[in-house]
């Protein structure tokens, strides 16, 4: 006999509002509905009422954790649209801050994953070490979380030699810690027992359902926008695309830890090889973009982020589209959460499996999915209307 088990919209391990409606038989999950509509804010509509410069600040606030990815994607998009590319030094500075943000995001996830499997001491240790990166981000950009570092035409601040030295020293300390966490993930029986063969997503499923980012790479899909479609200095800074073929939560853990190590070496290399010169070209605060359209893609910590802009020649975008990585991964998540064949999903594994995509619901702010028996999942948010109204001020 089957029961329906709601998880969310409020749940201790997922602070963001999302409703997972499970159909369970005993301890086994049979089917799942995901409703991510609780935090829709109508940002795409609101962007049509903002000038290009104002839009940057709104875009950064789509998501706190991946604000650097969003702002990078936005400024690259607008710069290509108006034909004012950022100078080479800015490309390097963008790469450095983006990789720092990736480190902080991945470490945050490793901590949360430890929390989700009940390994609290690991959670606290990782969060302590994450502070090293947070301090660096603050020292470089002036802000801990929403960095406001990218501007159209470049970046806001330069990195001098003293600061570069501080970054190198901190990252050296961090690298040692991350290597230790890597060993924990490889060897610790608690971590392995909770992650190996849990949340299985085969390579063909990952391809079919358009999984992106670490989720795809842990399922042996070698896809990383930084390598496939470089958007800042990636062509000049060497790095490896981390791929695992275990197709489970453990693989996603290892991909993220290895990517932190890759990011550290990328930042080291970029600091040593940064070209000198301007880090910003001035673009007037209000400008008209020529009519046209442009598409830009960025490898956010959670996967491929896509922005599309259409201009009609005015000082505001005619249409701005954002496709976030969590939205792309939701179909794959629903697949991971279902028992199929001899791959049984237990209720106790729900938090870590859902958590393994590093869900960012406020990023997604859109909806989905799979509803058995064609039932409509009810939502009561009026956020869209409320925030859209703010657009015309």
């Amino acid at each position, binding site marked *: 006999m089957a029961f329906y088990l709601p998880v969310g919209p409020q749940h201790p391990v997922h602070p963001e509002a999302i409703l997972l409606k499970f159909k369970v038989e005993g301890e086994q999950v049979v089917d799942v509905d995901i409703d991510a509509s609780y935090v829709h804010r109508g940002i795409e509509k609101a962007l049509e009422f903002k000038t290009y410069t104002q839009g940057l600040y709104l875009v950064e606030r789509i998501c706190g954790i991946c604000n650097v990815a969003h702002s990078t994607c936005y400024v690259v998009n607008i710069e290509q649209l108006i034909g004012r590319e950022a100078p080479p030094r800015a490309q390097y500075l963008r790469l450095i801050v983006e990789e720092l943000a990736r480190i902080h995001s991945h470490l945050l996830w490793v901590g949360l994953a430890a929390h989700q499997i009940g390994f609290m001491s690991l959670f606290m240790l990782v969060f302590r070490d994450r502070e090293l990166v947070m301090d660096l981000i603050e020292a470089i950009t002036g802000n801990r979380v929403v960095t406001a570092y990218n501007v159209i035409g470049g970046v806001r601040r330069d990195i001098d030699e003293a600061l570069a030295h501080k970054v190198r020293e901190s990252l050296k300390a961090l690298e040692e810690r991350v290597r230790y966490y890597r060993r924990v993930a490889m060897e610790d029986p608690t971590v392995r027992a909770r992650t190996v063969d849990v949340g299985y997503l085969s390579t063909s499923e990952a391809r079919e359902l358009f999984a992106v980012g670490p989720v795809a790479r842990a399922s042996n899909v070698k896809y990383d926008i930084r390598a*496939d479609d470089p958007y800042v200095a990636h062509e000049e800074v060497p790095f490896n695309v981390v791929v695992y073929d275990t197709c489970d939560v453990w693989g996603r853990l290892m991909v993220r830890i290895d990517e932190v190590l890759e990011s550290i070496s990328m930042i080291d290399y970029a600091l040593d090889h940064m070209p000198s010169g301007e880090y910003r070209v001035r673009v007037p605060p209000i400008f008209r973009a020529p009519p046209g359209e442009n598409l830009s*893609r960025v490898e956010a910590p959670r996967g491929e982020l896509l922005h599309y802009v259409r201009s009609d020649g005015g000082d505001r975008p005619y249409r701005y589209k954002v496709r976030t990585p969590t939205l792309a991964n*939701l179909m794959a998540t629903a697949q991971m959460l279902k028992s199929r064949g001899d791959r049984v999903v237990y209720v106790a594994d729900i938090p870590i499996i859902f958590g393994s995509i590093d869900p960012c619901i406020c990023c997604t702010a859109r909806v989905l999915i799979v509803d058995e028996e064609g039932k409509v999942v009810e939502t009561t948010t009026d956020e869209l209307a409320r925030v859209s109204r703010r657009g015309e001020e």
Partner: protein
Amino acid sequence: MSEEEIVRELREKFGDLLLEAEVRRKRRVFVTVRREHYREVLGALRNMGFDFLEALTGIDAGDHFEVIAHVGRSSSVSVKAIIPKEDPRLPSIVDSFKGAELYEREVYEMLGIVFEGNPRLRRLLLPEDWPRGVYPLRKDYKPEHPKPLR
């Protein structure tokens, strides 16, 4: 496959059916078709190896709607379908691009474009008291002006 080769191969297959096919910049190809040929072009691209749908963008372009399917991994091909305003319908691609389901639902909900053949096409995101037939990303939808807080 280089961007120029993609355009050449599509031109060979479809000739004048493509209203527009050009390389805009490195790794960015834009193709425009009428909606009757939208599925065929995407099917051909799929056979050429572009089996990854990145996103669907719906646009209210004034006198018509546009739905843009962004496909590809390294090179991104954007296939734009022109849809008349008085008849907002487009064939669904969920049979060949399985993960397209939620993208189609989003466009359906925000612009009212009906994807024929999507078995689960229904509203999901807007509040339950959102009036029927009001589509927020259409240009004739104007958000209300905010009332001052007291």
